[in-house]
């Protein structure tokens, strides 16, 4: 059963973003981690780097693929989840909570508006799984 986080917004590329004041937290969706299977490494950016919306900010390696992660909104990285270095499997177990990737200071919070809601993203995943 694919999990969804109601408080998050999603991209077409299966990244999620949750806001907390003027900062936002990024991660990948439960559907994404399930498709990737066992995650063996997450290459995170450095604190202080800035990314534009849709720019690659991280790379996830699983036993079967290496995938890029795209910034859902623009901003500067203020914190990274260093727990992922020693235990990248957290992303498989808790993609929406302990498996977060980075915290970002948003440069334009209005970019959140054209992201998918949980409901809309659920529909996207439903379509994708039906195609299979």
């Amino acid at each position, binding site marked *: 059963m694919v999990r969804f986080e109601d408080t998050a917004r999603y991209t077409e590329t299966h990244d999620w973003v949750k806001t907390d004041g003027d900062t936002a937290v990024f991660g990948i969706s439960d559907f994404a981690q399930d498709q990737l299977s066992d995650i*063996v*490494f997450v*290459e995170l950016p450095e604190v202080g780097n800035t990314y534009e919306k849709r720019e690659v900010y991280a*790379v996830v*390696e*699983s036993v*079967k*693929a*290496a995938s890029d992660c795209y910034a859902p909104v623009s901003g500067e990285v203020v914190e990274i989840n260093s727990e992922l270095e020693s235990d990248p499997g957290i992303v498989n177990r808790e993609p929406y909570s302990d498996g977060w990737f980075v915290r970002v200071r948003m440069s334009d919070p209005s970019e959140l508006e054209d992201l998918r809601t949980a409901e809309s993203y659920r529909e996207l995943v439903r379509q994708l799984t039906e195609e299979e």
Partner: protein
Amino acid sequence: MTYVPHTDQDRQEMLAAVGVTRVEDLLQDVPESVRFPRLDLPRPLSEPEILAEMAALADSNWDLDHHPCFLGAGAYNHFIPSVVKHVVSRSEFYTAYTPYQPEVSQGTLQAIFEYQSLICDLTGMDAANASHYDGATALAEAVIMSHSTHRGRRAKVVVSRTVNPQYRETARTYVQGMGITMVGDQDPDLSLAQLGDLVDEETACLVVQVPDFLGAIPSQADLQALAAQAHAVKALFVVSANPISLGLLKPPAEYGADVVVGEGQPLGNQIGFGGPYVGFFATRTEYVRRMAGRLAGMTTDVEGKRGFVLTLATREQHIRRERATSNICTNQALNALAAAAYLSAMGPHGLRTVAAACYHKAHYAASAINDLAGYQVLSGDFFHEFVVRCPRSVREITTGLLERGIIPGYQVEAEYPELGDCLLFCVTELNSREQIDSLIAALRDIA
């Protein structure tokens, strides 16, 4: 399967399609006199006759068994223990392609793993890949990895003028179109210490060679200062090293190298006609996921038994596609195996002995040449190669040595115009005292 040639009808249809009637019409642009010339060839020979003729031709080549060789400049004449040839001649190893399926390839994978481990021991690095084509391509991969480590955001590469000119040329070829600019190697007056001043926040890496192309060993203080200058701006410090010299010199890890590359030919591989060679590539753990090439790893199977597999393959092009650091997935497995067999046969003590013999013989030769009237050795600290300023043109010196049956040093003028009247001599453990003395006598004679 039967070979079916074109029928007459096929030919007519094709000729009609291009608007001519005969095949000869297609050759009209070739002048009549050379269209079907009479070739004045000798009569056909039998197999024993042709073998004798080819052997006579081959005998007119000079080889290292019959002529003292003082030529190095990137390819080095070292003794190859018989066991090396024996190991690489086993048919399990010399198949046309390297099998990577672990269930049927444990021997090959273990051999690669042991090669990698030996390269790590030599360089002091944490991880070595399964090898590249040669020292030049390994250096180019180091530049590309440095660029990739900074996610393509740093376009500047600072490289010493004393890095092998062919390696620099190869690196420039590899990075063309990537927006990378290589600087630091154009100005003959720029010292190694000054090179560090070119390193800034836009620099992906700083590249030096130890011993450098002209044989010199940079001071530890200079090397450590360069490493510190690179690290201060998070640039990588790349060292191209001669593996034999590492029998005597400090592993580059000890003076701050982040990547160590080099030509593996001196380790049990024939000089040949410039190849096949083998480039080694080693780096620190933090850069392993950006490294190019195959990587063999040691693991345990479901029964807990030791086994070998390819690992971290998600770095590679067949999985990461256009996002991979490099599109090189292949390696020089048989040459890497020769290097591993060589290092195993020599052992740490043997390698040190070879390096020390090279060092002392080269210094004996350099000292005696420097004492000759008109000759001047320009190198300060050096390993087994040194630059000699000659009293006459290098062409005359070279011709004189060849006339006396001696393979002379390398003419550096094409790459280093400031050293126009200089030869780069190399002395290895295979040069006997008699050979060195004959070189000295010949040089005295020619001056």
